[in-house]
């Protein structure tokens, strides 16, 4: 076998430091955070703090934006997230450094589902934002390209397939 590399050792040691660094960057924007797994920190953040928080992460050169996940929580109380018990949409911004993942969680009401675009800070976010608009019906303000990315051209407007209420289209002309 290869000689044992020191990387694993230091990786374990650094883990706490990297997490602490993330907390120190983000505590200005939110006091609601939880350590969900040994390598993950979730930070619950208000919509108006989203961009400043992301800018702070980037300015500190803490990791990279790995993905943006949309979630739909209709009705049932959410055991993993006691802060939010009512119907809502949630958008998760996942930042990664080494094995650490910091997730900024923004909760949105159905009737006010809008978010500021972060493309001026992270250009690659444009694809994720277009996906959120199509799949969850979240309005992204000032996103550089709001056109359709994945759904077919004849997809009806106002139908958001990744919402839990979507069970299939009535008219399936696209199939035949």
């Amino acid at each position, binding site marked *: 076998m290869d000689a044992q590399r020191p990387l694993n050792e230091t990786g374990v040691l650094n883990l706490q430091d990297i997490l602490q660094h993330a907390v120190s960057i983000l505590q200005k924007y939110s006091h609601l955070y939880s350590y969900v797994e040994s*390598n993950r920190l979730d930070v619950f953040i208000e919509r108006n703090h989203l961009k400043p928080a992301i800018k702070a992460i980037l300015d500190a050169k803490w990791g990279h*934006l790995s993905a943006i996940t949309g979630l739909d929580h209709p009705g049932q109380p959410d055991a993993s997230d006691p802060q939010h018990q009512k119907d809502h949409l949630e958008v998760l911004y996942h930042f990664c450094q*080494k094995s650490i993942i910091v997730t900024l969680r923004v909760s949105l009401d159905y009737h006010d589902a809008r978010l500021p675009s972060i493309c001026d800070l992270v250009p690659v976010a444009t694809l994720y934002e277009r996906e959120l608009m199509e799949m969850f019906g979240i309005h992204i303000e000032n996103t550089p390209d709001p056109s359709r990315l*994945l759904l077919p051209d004849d997809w009806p407007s106002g139908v958001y397939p990744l919402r839990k209420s979507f069970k299939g289209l009535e008219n399936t002309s696209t199939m035949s």
Partner: protein
Amino acid sequence: MLEFHTEKFIIPIGPQHPALKEPGHFEFTVDGETVTGATMRLGYVHRGIEKGVEGRNWTQAMYMLERVCGICSHVHATAFVLGVERLANVQVPPRAQAIRTLVGELERIHSHLLWLGVAAHEGGFDTLFMFSWRDRETVMDLLEELSGNRVHYSLNVIGGVKVDITDEIREHLLKGMDYLEERCKYYLNVISTDETFLGRTRGVGLMTLQQAEDLGAVGPTARASGVQRDIRIDAPYAGYSQFPVRLVTESTGDLHARFVVRIKELFESFRLIRLILANLPESELTTRVPRRIPAGETISRVEAPRGELFYYIKSNGNEYPERVKVRTPSLCNWSSVIVLAPGHKLADMPMLLSGIDPCFSCNDRMITIRHTDSNRTWSWEQLRQYGIEYYR
């Protein structure tokens, strides 16, 4: 004269066969031969997999997610099962983790060789294309011998793997690696010395380290620009903490560097496969996993052949996943093409497109369109009949 300059000439490429035999649509704005702008449209092979898995149980979901991609099927299943096993809080036997790692590397070999052929073909080097695809058959045969399948090896189960490495397969694997290593030495030599090849790749599609980080590039595309990032090293999963890989990077950031990084990664794969075969732990292959996965959410990241593959998995404690989000590496690398294209010759576009090793099926996942009464299962005969009617 002013009017002359404000008019744009747009060349649409795709959706049929934009450089590769997969669908995507690009519009390149050109001034003479020079590209001045680029846009893209995806979704032509969008199948609704993320929505689809919400209506299937955990095991069915695994098989469906494996079908996100025909090239890197194993890595998708691996990312998913690793996450589900973490949610279920089960320890997978070490031999199973080693076999997952081994097959992950075999898959990387087949994927990189496939890419080498495609990229060579786009550059007009058809002999290299046919050579590399012929050699790729070696690893395809090994995968088939190991799992019974050439494409969807399906050897993961939640809680382990379902195939073992026998002595006979071990011998064949070692022989195959020896052959492929010789071939890859030859390829590395060809791409580094052949004048015409260098003419098509050196200095083309240049991406600096800063650009790679700003554009969010991942995998070999990013590592060719000097980005020090590989999930196998940064956050070892499956057997990678036991069998560590060495990081392969280049600093030039051009198309040529992307060739070099991928071929050098193959040498790492050969080394790792030999290491695993020599030190395969003795243990069971599977462990019991409950059918209902405890409520919770987790994130699973693995290094696919094209870069970081990201899975977000959420369980509500019942038999079906609540939400599975898949972010595939190709999606991250697209913006590099769109940004890098301006200033290049139109003729460089196919190679620039294939330089990131795009995988369209990976980009396009999410929606299934079902008839409202179609919760019924289709028999093979019905499916066949549907196919015949559809294409009539």
